[in-house]
């Protein structure tokens, strides 16, 4: 091989290896920021204390309220996106004519391309006032409208991935089901969906991971009040919102308050990393069970 070819190949190799450096960089940054934090605040306090007030005079460093806020908005988002997304996937696969499928899919995917700051604006200025008209106790900032809007944002993610999973189930299964005299609904939910279940589960896990890491919608519409609650009507704070809140303020670099964003970041990273790997593992383990 010529020398110039060798050089080019090693440059390309270098570009590929940079992706490993990015992962290493993320882990290093999160650890370097949070290890000094955990030298001052015990991990046990961090994981069990029920208050999160690092920016107040009376400091408490319990991550649970932020985790609760993140969990709450994520749960609402999935409660919206899973039934709607899965129904759309089944409908497009089993019922809709091809022309409808081809025109609806790109329209729905527009939902995924809209910047999240736009969703946040819409949640705050339209969805919350709308919900307030029939939910009297709803605060101006709340987990409910942020969660609902986030759910609508991730519908295309669930519907597209689930649809791929359902359409890769072999036709023979569907034909066998019709042959037994089943209706389309029975075929869909007793044969096709169970057969595609691993792919559907992967889509849901990826959607959960996306919702956990989503930032701007919750930062705009859910409030900035860390509290340990499952009540969707009051302001809460998520892990991501807290990081935004600190980044916008003027917390001195290197202080304990500054390091809290890395401790919060590491919790967020562990959650999403775990979910992404779980989906990867399921995909690998259960892929192509049918020929």
């Amino acid at each position, binding site marked *: 091989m010529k020398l110039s070819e060798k050089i080019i190949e090693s440059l390309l190799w270098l570009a590929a290896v940079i992706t490993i450096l990015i992962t290493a960089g993320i882990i290093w940054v999160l650890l370097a920021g949070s290890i000094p934090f955990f030298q001052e605040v015990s991990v046990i306090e961090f994981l069990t204390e029920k208050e999160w007030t690092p920016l107040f005079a009376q400091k408490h460093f319990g991550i649970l309220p932020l985790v609760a806020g993140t969990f709450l908005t994520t749960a609402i988002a999935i409660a919206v996106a899973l039934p709607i997304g899965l129904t759309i996937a089944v409908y497009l696969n089993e019922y809709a004519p091809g022309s409808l499928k081809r025109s609806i899919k790109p329209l729905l995917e527009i939902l995924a391309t809209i910047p999240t700051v736009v969703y946040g604006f819409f949640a705050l200025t339209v969805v919350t006032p709308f919900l307030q008209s029939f939910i009297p106790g709803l605060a101006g900032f709340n987990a409910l409208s942020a969660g609902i809007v986030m759910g609508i944002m991730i519908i295309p993610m669930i519907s597209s991935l689930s649809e791929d999973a359902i359409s890769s189930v072999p036709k023979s299964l569907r034909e066998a089901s019709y042959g037994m005299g089943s209706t389309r609904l029975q075929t869909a939910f007793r044969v096709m969906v169970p057969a595609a279940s691993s792919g559907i589960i992967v889509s849901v896990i990826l959607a959960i991971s996306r919702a956990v890491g989503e930032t701007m919608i919750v930062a705009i519409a859910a409030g900035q009040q860390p509290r340990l609650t499952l009540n969707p009507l009051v302001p809460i704070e998520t892990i991501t919102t807290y990081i935004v809140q600190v*980044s916008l303020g003027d917390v001195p670099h290197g202080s304990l308050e500054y390091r809290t964003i890395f401790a919060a970041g590491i919790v967020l990273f562990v959650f999403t990393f775990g979910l992404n790997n779980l989906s990867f593992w399921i995909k690998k383990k259960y892929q192509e069970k049918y020929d």
Partner: protein
Amino acid sequence: MTRSSINQLKDKAFQFFGVLCMLIGLVFLAALLIDIISRGMSRIDWDFLTSLPSRRASRSGILTAWAGTLWILLLTSIIAFPLGISAGVYLEEYTRKTKLSSFLEINIANLAGVPSIIYGLLGLEIFVRQMGLGSSLLAGALTLSLLILPIVIVTTREALKAVPQSVRQGSYALGATKWQTIWRQVLPASFGGILTGVILALSRAVGEAAPLIVVGALAYVPFVPSSPNDEFTVLPIQIFNWTSRPQAEFLVNAAAAIIMLLFITFLLNGIAVYLRNRQQKKIKW
């Protein structure tokens, strides 16, 4: 009623429910667009596009925000595309099935799932602090480049996969080296696909606010940035800032800025869809 007629009724009911679910998504989308256009359209005029930000909502404009957005788009393209396309070419054309290559693949899939705000923390420590770039356009663009790198790599690989082996074999048969084959045959043949992916990645970058907030992009920048070392703001951050103010006039400004942001996003996505369709029609291997 017989058993089978009940089942058929259920079938019809689900069909109705399916249409309803699609309508929920589409009605929501329509409501969002109509609301924002009706709120903000009247605010958009030449002054709004060419004025600096101001404390007074009625005099405030988005000149610095869209100038910052254009800068970020340009710098991010310059950094992310050579890197992402090179990595994609290496992974698709050079690696054999080794431990390293499968590790690289898992790693890239994982990077694609890392929340954007974590990239912000990475950018803050590495680019802003360690490399001493400060909260500059360059630091922001580097951060967004790392964020969209997985998308560029994955779409580059898809585009390269679509080029049939016979093209490569034909080139080798004429005595071309591996790199000559890639540079003169494979890359030009897959150019459309790569470009589609690249534009989709850019449309993702243009809407990101969270990582740039962490990196330290400001909401109030009273000048148009003139070099990569300048401080900056972008449209999503300007929108976020206006949305979080109590006065109603700023919400009108936010809606007007959202119209501009959506215009850029939809334009980029539209180009990508157009390129994809043209690509599919043109090439028949």
